[in-house]
């Protein structure tokens, strides 16, 4: 409980530090804010235009004042307005978030659906054909850049076989290729993690004892081994959410998926700094929250953690 309370207190501090750091770093970015605006808005750098931009976007005000204003806006989840479109960033997030959540959730579900049985079987039959295949696949998928896998899938399933749509968002069929691309790396990671965990659990004395007692194999795996072997997966899930969000930047761009990742990449390219700051804060908040939830669940499932953490 104390551990959870400590994490709950730390979470806002982490968010504040991340947001402040992103604000400062981007304010001091090479080129300066005026150049970013000129570039992003496609304007010619005349003295009149520069002066008008400084006044319109408040760049003539002290950094601390702008920081305070931004912080208040972030606390209200508004995050100010985009330099480029002039739209409220909070509203853009609300519009784009469902697409990213849909993609990330599909990818996560797919990852778990594939990695849990593969990891279990590979762990139970070490050195077997599935273990070997999953190992090779994990190496291959981890080494393959996400965008490249995306192109291969697009060419194979969309252009060549004409089974699935190439890009965009619409029906469930549009979701398949981007979700598979986004899920690939996580699936490999989860499967190997679970496989190693299962191997470790099977060497535990309680398993030998259970077998000696004549416990049925299905019961032993379902009730004991899987539950214990699945614990590292909970911790990995917390980290995986961050991975999914960063992976979404590339996958959404390749598949023309109208989500937050693409919005973020476009903001980077046009130097739309308020959007970049807001996205960094948003991702930080999601990662902190998911890690916190993962830790709480982990602690609930494995009381040893709470016991070990206690003084």
């Amino acid at each position, binding site marked *: 409980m104390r551990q959870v309370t400590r994490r709950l207190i730390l979470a806002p501090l982490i968010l504040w530090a991340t947001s402040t750091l992103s604000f400062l770093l981007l304010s001091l*970015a*090479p*080129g*300066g804010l005026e*150049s*970013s605006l*000129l*570039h*992003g*808005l*496609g*304007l*010619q*750098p*005349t*003295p*009149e*235009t*520069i*002066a*008008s931009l400084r006044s319109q976007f408040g760049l003539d005000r002290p950094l601390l004042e702008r920081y305070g204003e931004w912080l208040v806006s972030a606390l209200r989840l508004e995050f100010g307005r985009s330099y*480029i*479109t*002039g739209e409220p960033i909070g509203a853009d997030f609300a*519009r*784009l978030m469902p697409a990213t959540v849909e993609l990330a959730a599909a990818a996560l579900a797919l990852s778990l659906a594939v990695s849990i049985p593969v990891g279990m079987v590979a762990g139970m039959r070490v050195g077997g054909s599935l273990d070997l295949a999953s190992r090779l696949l994990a190496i291959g998928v981890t080494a393959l850049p996400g*965008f490249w896998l995306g*192109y291969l899938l*697009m*060419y194979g399933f*969309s*252009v060549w076989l*004409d089974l699935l749509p*190439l*890009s*965009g*968002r619409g029906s469930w069929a549009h979701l398949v290729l981007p979700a598979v691309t986004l899920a690939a790396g996580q699936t490999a990671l989860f499967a190997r993690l679970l496989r190693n965990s299962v191997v470790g659990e099977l060497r535990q004395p309680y398993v030998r004892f259970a077998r000696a007692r004549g416990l049925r194999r299905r019961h032993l795996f379902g009730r004991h081994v899987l539950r214990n072997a699945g614990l590292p997966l909970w911790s990995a899930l917390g980290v995986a959410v961050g991975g999914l969000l960063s992976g979404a930047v590339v996958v959404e*761009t*390749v*598949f*023309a998926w*109208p989500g937050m990742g*693409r*919005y973020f*990449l*476009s903001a980077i*390219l*046009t*130097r739309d700094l308020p959007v970049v700051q807001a996205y960094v804060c948003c991702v930080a908040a999601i990662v902190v929250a998911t890690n916190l939830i993962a830790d709480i669940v982990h602690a609930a499932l494995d009381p040893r953690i709470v016991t070990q953490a206690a003084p």
Partner: protein
Amino acid sequence: MSSLHSLLRAVARIPTRCLSIPVFAFCLCLAVQTAAVGHELRMAWNADVGPSNPHMYQPSQMFAQDLIYEGLVNYGPGGRIEPHLAESWALSEDGRELTFVLRRDVVFSDGTPFDAKAVLLNVEHVLANRERHAWMEFIRQMDKVDAVDSHTVRFSLKQPYSGSLQELSLIRPLRFLSPSGFRETGITRDGIKAPIGTGRWIMSEYRKDEYAVFLRNDRYWGTKPTLSRVVVRVMPDVETRLLALERGDIDLLFGDGLVGLEAFVRLRQNRSVETFVSGPLFTRIVQLNTSRPLLADIKVRQAILSAVDKDSIVKSLLLDLEPRADGLFSPGVPFTDVGLPPVPYDPGKTRALLEEAGWRLTPGQGIRTRSGERLALTLAFAAPNTVAKGLAEVLQAYLRAVGIELRLHGEDPAATMRRQRAGDFDLMYGDSWGPPYEPAAFINTMRSPTQPSAIAQTGLPMKADIDRVIASAMAATSEERQREMYRILLTTFHEQAIHLPISHAVNLAVLRRDFTGFGFAEQQYVIPLERIRRR
């Protein structure tokens, strides 16, 4: 007998007729359906089309603005200014008053008449945001605009400006939004209510970051497009666009940034598509900053210009798609064909010039020195520009071969822009602006203290004279005077060796063979969709 025979034949025809009616109806339906589908063109764009505000810049995409809105005049072949929404115009003798007579048969796509009142409303909103358009000399010089009658408007200028008509033909910001498209409060800088113009196309559907649908404007005053519908899908990734074209998800890719040079060359072998290369548009230039100590010496500048084999660059880097550039502007830009001799690739001459300037190679050293100082220069360019990056690396190799070290500063575009404004560069890669900005608008920036072209000239002893000649060219009211002023300017730039033109960039397009009739317009971002038709 014959009547019985006729009767029998008529009876025999009944099943045929009975069958033929549904068959005919089916064929008719199919034809109607095919026509409906056949009149739709799908194209990809790398960014969202934006709010399509006619008076603003990014994120509104120029091609979409051009589909919806029109200008008073049009930039035609050879730089000729043609009537468009204005059927005629007259310039006063002192060059300070430009009077346009508007067409009477034009209505906005919502049915609102296009008249002097609409023109005035639009110009007022543009002038209310004058600072944002300060790069346009026409707007800087505009004193007032008034309506002479319901279909005549008069622009009064503080000083005559020779590029006025060219700037009025630009895609933005002097195009016209229907009075019903304005918000009740504020100015168009802060947004518009709806994108309603007089153009050939109406934006009927828009889903931000996904697609935009344009329907043919059946109220259009001129030749209407054959296509009835154009769907623009947002595809930020170049490979995705190419796969979509191959799969038949899209029919048209337009613009060199949308295709990529290598992919374009590959697509030339693809039988399902037709490829198009435009005439020369803007020029890829490396500017030499005369205000920097090493480049203040004309011999070093001339040496650099002779050290680069542009033909090889065009062949290997630009895949022979762009013509070599020997001058600042593409052939055909008005008043700029002044017969200047090209600078040939001559590394021997380069070495001799550097020796004359005191830069010598010592045995065992690859870089020339003078009094212990190395002949090391910097080249700044925006890193995301792949052509600039490739070009920078090739230039580095050419200059290295004659003993000049070239350090590459490939940076974020905003950082490059700041370097430009601060004059913190020896060499800077950039593009000229292409038609209709050339020559007037582009040359005029050479007077602006924040433009790299102006900063690069500040080390020239005759810079004050150059600025005076630019001022004369801008204020000239006769073609002869303009021609003479541009001749003086271009000759000076050439003699002073301040520009290294590499190639004249072109526009690229790929169209599926289901369609035909494609042709390029004079301006880079004008897509003449009205010419395209289904085969």
